[in-house]
């Protein structure tokens, strides 16, 4: 049986084109066929999770039923009552499968958990977000069918972008007028073609040609201070370029495909290498993830800390929450020393960044601000980010701890 990585090869794109054509003609004539959308969703889900990967498919089905039960149950409950402990319990239960999947390799010598499947994190983000908005009362009209469509929307199922229930629902329940839709098609097609260049040319070059060579060279040049060498530096840049082009390329495919289906899934990248500081970098890099963390972890924690006056000053509150927020992000990537260090690195970087911005605001007269300082800021930020990606890559683990 056929089986594909989403957007993995030309056949996948050919099938995608054929499957989307009737849907696109429908949208052009102002019609959205739920039945057809559901059928092609199932078709592509089977392609991704069927055949040799059928165990993942089963895991996905059980997971979805479990999350539907929780979110639906909570939505019904929330109409009657609103107790804090019940809400926390539900969130913990919703995160439980993901936690098991993330912790299993760390305690079972790298063995993957049986309940895992491609995209479980991204689905968990969507489910938890739905629950939190139900708790706040911002999401009042929870519908099981919409929730299912939202969770199983096939263009973004494996790695995001992470949409929001209410935003998705708005698009999904309506049909864009013809002019708007034609604009979306134009954008969608362009995104997909830029995606081809990113993923199949640039990411391929950096990831599959350059990186392995540099890796071998770096391993041969061990022995110096912390085993560092020029090839390690080269690896750092090649890995960063690969990470960006691979993920941005994938995201362009996912967003482009969504657009063709008349759903304006939010963008994931916005010229991240132009960021003048780390704070701004997180507004431009893996945006739907960092905004998810901002809205559902950072802001909520800050709100809670300040309301209960846990820390004396707002500054301390912000700093502690930065560290917690980024550490959680680190743990989410996986329970290894390098993911956690990566999270800590960015947490500390945000704290320093904020202190610097405050200093700059206070001493506006004496801190120079010109074209050169701007370029220097961009250069410094990009290099700090690349260094954090070197930690993230796990290559230092190979460099230091393998024979």
């Amino acid at each position, binding site marked *: 049986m056929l089986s594909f990585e989403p957007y993995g090869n030309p056949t996948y794109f050919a099938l995608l084109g054929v499957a989307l054509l009737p849907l696109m003609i429908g949208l052009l004539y102002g019609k959205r066929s739920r039945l057809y959308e559901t059928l092609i969703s199932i078709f592509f889900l089977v392609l991704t999770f069927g055949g040799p990967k059928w165990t993942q498919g089963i895991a996905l089905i059980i997971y979805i039923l479990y999350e539907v039960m929780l979110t639906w149950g909570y939505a019904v409950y929330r109409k009657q009552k609103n107790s804090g402990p019940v809400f926390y319990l539900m969130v913990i239960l919703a995160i439980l499968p993901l936690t098991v999947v993330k912790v299993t390799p760390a305690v079972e010598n790298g063995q993957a958990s049986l309940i895992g499947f491609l995209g479980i994190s991204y689905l968990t983000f969507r489910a938890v977000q739905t629950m*939190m*908005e139900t708790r*706040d*009362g*911002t*999401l009042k009209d929870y519908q099981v069918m919409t929730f299912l469509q939202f969770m199983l929307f096939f263009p973004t199922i494996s790695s995001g972008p992470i949409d929001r229930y209410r935003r998705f629902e708005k698009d999904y329940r309506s049909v864009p007028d013809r002019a708007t839709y034609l604009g979306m098609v134009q954008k969608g097609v362009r995104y997909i073609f830029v995606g081809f260049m990113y993923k199949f040319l640039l990411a391929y070059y950096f990831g599959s040609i350059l990186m392995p060579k540099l890796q071998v060279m770096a391993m041969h040049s061990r022995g110096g201070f912390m085993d560092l060498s020029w090839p390690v530096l080269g690896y750092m840049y090649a890995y960063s370029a690969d990470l960006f082009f691979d993920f941005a390329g994938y995201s362009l495919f996912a967003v482009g495909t969504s657009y063709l289906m008349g759903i304006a899934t939010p963008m994931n990248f916005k010229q991240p290498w132009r960021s003048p500081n780390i*704070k701004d970098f997180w507004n431009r890099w893996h945006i739907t993830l960092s905004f998810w963390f*901002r*809205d*559902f972890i*950072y*802001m*909520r924690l*800050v*709100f809670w800390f*300040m*309301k209960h006056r846990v820390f004396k000053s*707002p500054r301390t*509150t*912000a700093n502690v929450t930065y560290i917690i927020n980024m550490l959680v992000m680190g743990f989410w990537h996986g329970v290894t020393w390098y993911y956690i260090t990566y999270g800590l690195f960015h947490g500390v970087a945000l704290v320093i960044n904020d202190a610097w*911005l405050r200093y700059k*605001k206070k001493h506006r007269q004496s801190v120079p601000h010109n074209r050169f300082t701007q370029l220097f800021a961009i250069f410094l930020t990009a290099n700090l980010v690349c260094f954090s990606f070197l930690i993230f890559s796990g290559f230092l683990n190979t460099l230091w701890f393998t024979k």
Partner: protein
Amino acid sequence: MDVKETVLSILSDLTGNDVSGAMDDNLFDSGLLDSMGSVQLLLQLQSQLGVNVPVSEFERSEWDTPNKIVKKVESLA
């Protein structure tokens, strides 16, 4: 004090700037507000005006200028 005045005084406390002369400037783009500032704003609105805004109601694009914030608060007060 009416809603507008209260909102402006909260904003000037939070940002350290008098924003009444730039009612349509984007507070996030200029760096005057960030997530931390947003939460402080929500808490102040709660304590000074009794307006309850849950964090998930805070859609940045609807709260990014003094004018938009005043309008939003007036609609909720």
